């Protein structure tokens, strides 16, 4: 029995060593037996990954002590009664680019300094871009009539009818101050804007400016810097333009140009074409959103808006209502010649509506 036991033990040990050894070898060389390693994604933890979300603050102030002026604003907003054209419009797409709140930083600064701001609201029932027919024998338009009572005109539209452009041109020639702002989307509209710009001696260039290296939270929100620290750009180190198209003028006395490294969408090449120019009493800006409440809080936009407010009230337009007395809403101011030389002080306050 002892011998048989020894043999049985030898049998078991031998089989066990061979089969067990094979199993152990298989286990040792098995693929995928190791636990999955911990993965460190340090790129998710980089300190500079999180963009600064502080909205900032704005302090729009005017330095001008001009007597009260009247500023007419055409925000290009839809008249009441518009209904969405598509189901997507009901989801909030579309709508005016410039709403009441968007012009408030500028308008409030003007109002707080004693100036009157009027908003041009086209008559004619729900058409966003009404093409007004001349209502008088001499081509009088609603806009023309309202401009006659204004010292300065701020517009966020450029697609005016020919009669309206006539009125705007004669307003400017009559020493009225004009600020015209449009954005790159407007170039895809009807070509009326080209005539508008041409009459005023300014230009806009298709495309938008962007900067992928240094920007205000988005490549399209470019910084622009002035060449000189005076007038419109006094105290402005840099301003933010959320969606800007290049503008130009034959002769400009002030301008803001995108910072180095900015590029133009149409060329994908570096551009230093200005996004704001001043040509005499006309300021042309290739952006409509830089003065909204939130954007006024970015960089030195609040300083720029204050400077614009000063610019709007420092014109030398003679007493408003100097044009031909044809409109039914003519003010009762005595006419004193159609184009007053710029030397005369416009000391009278603008007429009340």
């Amino acid at each position, binding site marked *: 029995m002892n011998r048989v036991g020894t043999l049985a033990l030898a049998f078991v040990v031998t089989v066990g060593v061979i089969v067990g050894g*094979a*199993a152990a070898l298989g286990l040792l060389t098995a*693929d*995928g037996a190791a636990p999955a390693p911990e993965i460190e994604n340090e*790129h*998710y933890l980089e300190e500079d990954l999180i963009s600064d*979300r502080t*909205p900032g603050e704005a302090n729009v102030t005017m330095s001008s002590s001009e007597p009260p002026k009247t500023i007419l604003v055409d925000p290009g907003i839809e008249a009441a009664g518009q209904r969405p054209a598509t189901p997507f419009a009901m989801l909030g797409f579309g709508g005016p680019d410039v709403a009441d709140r968007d012009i408030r930083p500028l308008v409030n600064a003007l109002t707080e300094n004693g100036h009157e701001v009027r908003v041009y609201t086209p008559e004619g029932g729900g058409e966003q871009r009404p093409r007004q027919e001349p209502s008088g024998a001499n081509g009088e338009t609603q806009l023309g009539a309202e401009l006659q009572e204004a010292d300065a005109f701020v517009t966020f539209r450029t697609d005016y009818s020919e009669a309206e452009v006539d009125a705007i041109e004669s307003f400017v020639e009559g020493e009225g101050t004009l600020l015209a702002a449009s954005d790159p989307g407007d170039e895809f509209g009807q070509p009326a804007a080209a005539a508008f710009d041409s009459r005023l001696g300014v230009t806009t260039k298709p495309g938008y400016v962007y900067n992928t290296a240094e920007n205000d939270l988005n490549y399209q*929100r470019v910084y622009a810097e002035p060449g000189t620290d005076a007038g419109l750009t006094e105290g402005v180190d840099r301003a933010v333009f959320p969606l800007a198209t290049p503008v130009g003028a034959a002769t400009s006395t002030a301008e803001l140009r995108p910072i180095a490294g900015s590029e133009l969408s149409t060329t994908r090449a570096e551009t230093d074409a200005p996004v704001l120019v001043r040509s005499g009493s006309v300021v042309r800006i290739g952006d409509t959103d830089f003065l909204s409440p939130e954007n006024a809080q970015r960089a030195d936009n609040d300083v720029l808006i204050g400077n614009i407010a000063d610019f709007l009230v420092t014109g030398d337009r003679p007493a408003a209502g100097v044009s031909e007395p044809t409109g039914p809403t003519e003010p009762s101011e005595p006419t004193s010649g159609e184009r007053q030389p710029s030397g005369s002080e416009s000391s009278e306050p603008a007429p009340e509506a």
Partner: protein
Amino acid sequence: MSPNDSLGSLTARQRLVAVVLVAAVIGAVFAPVAYSATNEPSDTVAVVEIEGPVNAALADDVESELAEIRSNESVGAVVLKIDTPGGAPAASERMYKAVQRTSEQMPVIASVQATSASGGYYAMAPADRIYVLPTSVVGSIGLNAPAPQSSPPVAGPSGPDKVGSNEIESWARQQTLADTFINAMMAERGDRFEMPREDVANADVYLGTVAVQNGFADEIGSLNEAIHAAATEAELGEYRVDTRETGPDEGLPFLIRTDEQVVAIHANDPGYGDVEPMGMAYVHLGSVPHVDTVERFSGSELETADAAGVGSDGSGQSGGSATPSADPSAGGEAS
């Protein structure tokens, strides 16, 4: 007793040797079984399909397939068969993490079919190599989102950001989201991109022929070539291919873009409830039809068109009444 008799002529030592020899033979018979039981050959290349808009349902499937593959010892390598314009950021990140983890364990090769853009590119970036066809489109590393807008206040919520938010804060959030994507791509493939981060952030797409030159892809090759390369890399001798379909069987939304943003449409004949605006998306817009180009067909109109010999070229549209406005007359000429 008889065994003792037969063994009786052998010495004790000889008996022991005989028993050991017999045991060794028996052991040798069972050894391969024991070896294979503990060491299954990695002889399968798993092909995981990532097709259609990137959304949570697709990410669910890709995650679970890859998790199964990682624990399945018969799978030695993975090929991602990709054809997607991108989609939801979170779903893209989930797939990215799943691919990354799998790639730590075994060779993973991405094989781009027509498109792997934006969220699709995000998902496949951790692959060891990216195969493209010459006409594949890859890239679009960036975020698509509408410009944040201020909205009228809503009375009632418990905090100012519960409903609505601050424009600037939203801009910052979007930029952070975009940077998260771009940083991840730079971490995965920054050493292969033949361009600086700033240019990657332009979010351009590149044809396969260009992508293999600028580092957005590694090789020109078809799915089969990618499978073979994966098997070779995993040192599989003979291998079999196991294709894993992913994504919901039906109900993939149409992605449509408006002038403002991308919307997912969950029905062929959608009502308002079927249209879901995608606030933010990693998507290549060029692969998403604009709403203006989408026309509405009824079933009977399609039948009429078929009867007239139009569109009977087996184009196999996704079978709905809302299909991209392929010009029926052009289709007729083609057939």
